[in-house]
């Protein structure tokens, strides 16, 4: 019988940068974009030329958004706030909300998917129906509904996003678990007298893990757009806190009178962040040879 050689499955930073594999460019570009946005959000207090919510123009210019200039590279808004500074600060809320939402969705969706797929039976049926009915709702509508019931705050926005994205994690993990548990090595683990807890954690989970990464990438893409929607409707923070979604909302009234910079830059940043996660997710999917349907 032919000897099959190959490298162990797993991730190493060095291997990721050095090796050649499909999806590498996409993945690295995605990671670069995400890291870049995280960086500017952290460093905002040190690099922003003006405070984000303070008048930075003479009183005479109040009420009229000023176009980009050397002093204000992204222009100012009607209140005289410097848009460049607001853009630098504006990623903080969205990153926080999406990170918290991803953590909650992972923490709930993954264990439920594992248990549901592994044990099947009644619990599985109940969970599947529940998750599928949540999944069937348009994400943004559901998120808005929940967030408005809970009240506007970043934490509540994260909770409502989690409700929307738990089913995504659940469905993918459950599906993969159903596939893995039919594998003979699970049977072999049982035949060695290993309890289900160990079989699940040490044999099923590691085999399901790659798909969790992909769902994280692609799910977060969606979550970013939904979060921007929540912010747009004022369901995360209140003005004058800097936030891309909220600035988009505040800028929309001036857009028609020619102040394109008030919507262009916040919109660009939201798109860029979503793109970063999409590239990460698709790149991972390609590397791990997981087919995605969206």
């Amino acid at each position, binding site marked *: 019988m032919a000897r099959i050689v190959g490298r162990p499955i797993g991730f190493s930073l060095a291997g990721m940068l050095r090796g050649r594999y499909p999806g590498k460019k996409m993945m690295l570009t995605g990671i670069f974009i995400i890291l870049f946005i995280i960086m500017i959000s952290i460093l905002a207090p040190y690099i922003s030329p003006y405070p984000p919510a303070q008048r930075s123009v003479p009183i005479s210019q109040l009420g009229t958004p000023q176009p980009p200039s050397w002093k204000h590279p992204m222009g100012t808004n009607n209140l005289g706030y410097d848009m460049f500074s607001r853009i630098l600060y504006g990623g903080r809320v969205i990153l926080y909300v999406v990170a918290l939402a991803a953590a909650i969705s992972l923490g709930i969706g993954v264990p439920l998917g594992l248990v549901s797929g592994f044990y099947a039976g009644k619990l599985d049926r109940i969970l599947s129906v529940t998750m599928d009915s949540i999944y069937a709702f348009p994400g943004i509508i559901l998120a808005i509904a929940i967030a408005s019931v809970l009240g506007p705050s970043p934490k509540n926005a994260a909770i409502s996003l989690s409700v929307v994205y738990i089913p995504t994690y659940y469905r993918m993990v459950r599906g993969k678990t159903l596939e893995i548990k039919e594998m003979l*090595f699970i049977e072999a683990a049982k035949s*060695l*007298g290993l309890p289900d807890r*160990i079989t699940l954690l040490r044999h099923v989970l590691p085999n399901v893990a790659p798909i969790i990464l992909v769902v994280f990438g692609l799910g977060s893409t969606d979550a970013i757009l939904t979060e921007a929607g929540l912010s747009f409707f004022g369901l995360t923070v209140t003005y004058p806190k800097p936030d891309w979604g909220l600035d988009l909302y505040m800028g929309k009234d001036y857009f028609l009178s020619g102040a394109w910079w008030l919507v262009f830059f916040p919109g660009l940043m939201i798109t860029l962040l979503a793109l970063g996660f999409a590239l990460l997710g698709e790149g991972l999917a390609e590397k791990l040879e997981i087919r995605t349907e969206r």
Partner: protein
Amino acid sequence: MALLEIRGLNVEYPTLSGIVRAVVDANLEVEGGEWVSIVGESGSGKSTLAYSITRLLPPPGRIRSGSILYRGVDLVKLPERELRKYRGPEIGMIFQDPMTSLDPVRTIGDQIAEALLEHGIAKDKAEAYSLAGDALEEVGIPRNRLKSYPHQLSGGQRQRVLIAGAVALNPRILIADEPTTALDVVVQAKIMDLLEELKEKHDMTIIFITHDIALAAERSTRIVVMYAGHIMEDAPAEQLVENPLHPYTQGLLNATPDLWSDKRIESIPGYPPDLRRPPPGCPFHPRCPRAWGLCRSEKPALLDLNGRRVACHLYRREGAGR
């Protein structure tokens, strides 16, 4: 008392189109130190019988009635938690397909060591790995392979790793479900040698499941022939091959190629019955060249004939039955 006593075992798979009776009223005793081979075609219930011993039936399989006594303890009634202590250290198993029986994302050392830790055979990780290394060496794989992943090994090596994992727990019974079917003949012979060697060394009893009666005849002390969920014949290996009593066993042996004779291979006409609707009487009668009236109406009991058993009405006439 026998090491393993299966009494009146009925196993079934409920399906949408009816209940498949995979094992019907099976009675079987296995003594310590035996190598019992269970032989039969696909779907004869041989694997189902073996898997029900440790209750690892694939869903929706279930044991409907009967008992399986292992050293006096009924495994059928044991709660799952208790049963787990028997799986591995008392009754080990190895499987048909060594390619998929190992977890692809864990090293083979991890996989052997974790069971040793779970059953308290090793006190800590270091000891578990050292024992796992010993186990690998015992099956002829260098211990530096502990850190290898399954895809770095060949099929034969993987089967050795599986055997090492099972034997490391020092089971009294090793159930081998067609462990050589997926391997080529040369590797197959080596695995069989290994099993025999380990059996002697560890004083194990082997229950060997196979469709290959010639392979079974080579090493077994006893062969049990199953057909359509029924035990048809049970005899010491030599007697069974030299003098098969059941027409089905005779058919099986006639269908086995023999390199050293110019005997014609004869297949058994017809197909095994649909187990959802088994034929009345003897399950083999529609294919049996020697079937007579009673075969069509009455199910033959497993008769004791000086140290061997056969379920066939032909022998009832001779007055050997009860």
